[in-house]
């Protein structure tokens, strides 16, 4: 599964994308964020306040309880500030 990061989530993690193999039991976006937090200080920093990190599954905005089974690309990023 491909993960992509943007803005300060990308800066904190220190990379813009990576391929990961998920352990058993990771079913939702919130599960995935929780697992990422355990992968090191940089991830813990990026997800220190999970409520403010938004996610997209295959380029669609989703809520934390969205399932990730079958997803090809999951993105994490701060609230958007375009326009």
């Amino acid at each position, binding site marked *: 599964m491909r993960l*992509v990061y*943007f*803005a*300060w989530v990308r800066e904190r993690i220190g990379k813009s994308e990576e391929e990961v193999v998920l352990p058993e039991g990771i079913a939702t976006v919130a599960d995935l964020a929780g697992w990422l937090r355990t992968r090191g200080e940089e991830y813990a920093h990026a997800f220190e306040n999970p409520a403010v990190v938004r996610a*997209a599954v295959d*380029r*669609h*905005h*989703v*809520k934390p309880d969205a399932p990730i089974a079958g997803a090809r690309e999951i*993105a994490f*990023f*701060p*609230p*958007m*500030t*375009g*326009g």
Partner: protein
Amino acid sequence: MPTIRIQREDFDAATEAAALTRGQTEVGAVVTFTGLCRAEAGRLAALELEHYPGMAEEEVARVVAEAEARWPLEGVTVIHRYGRIAPGEQIVLVVTASTHRQAAFEAASFLMDYLKTRAPFWKKEHHADGSAGEWVAAKDADDEALARWQPSAPRAAE
């Protein structure tokens, strides 16, 4: 067919608006919104706009489709830039054409509110004094602006 472009280059609002009405004789109203980078009293040297390639185009297309479902539009154009943008430069363009003015106004305003909060773009400031810039925080006012368009229940996603 709406025109949607996510690009580094600047745009010409007049050319885009003209393209929307060329050969048309039933368009009664054209509303053009141009968003520009402000200097904020000289504090800002530039904005750096990061975007999510691929999703940006798709999400803008979804927002445009919502506007077209909601108002009788004869044409829609949305252009959003990314990259480094200096004060006074253009960031975003929305053009709506309709037979009636209120549809054109409301659709353009709706599109801007949605782009602000749903299009995957993030702004980072570069300070004029050379100090480290910060990511622009999302504004509560923008979420409130969005709520105007949802008279019934809150949206499921977002």
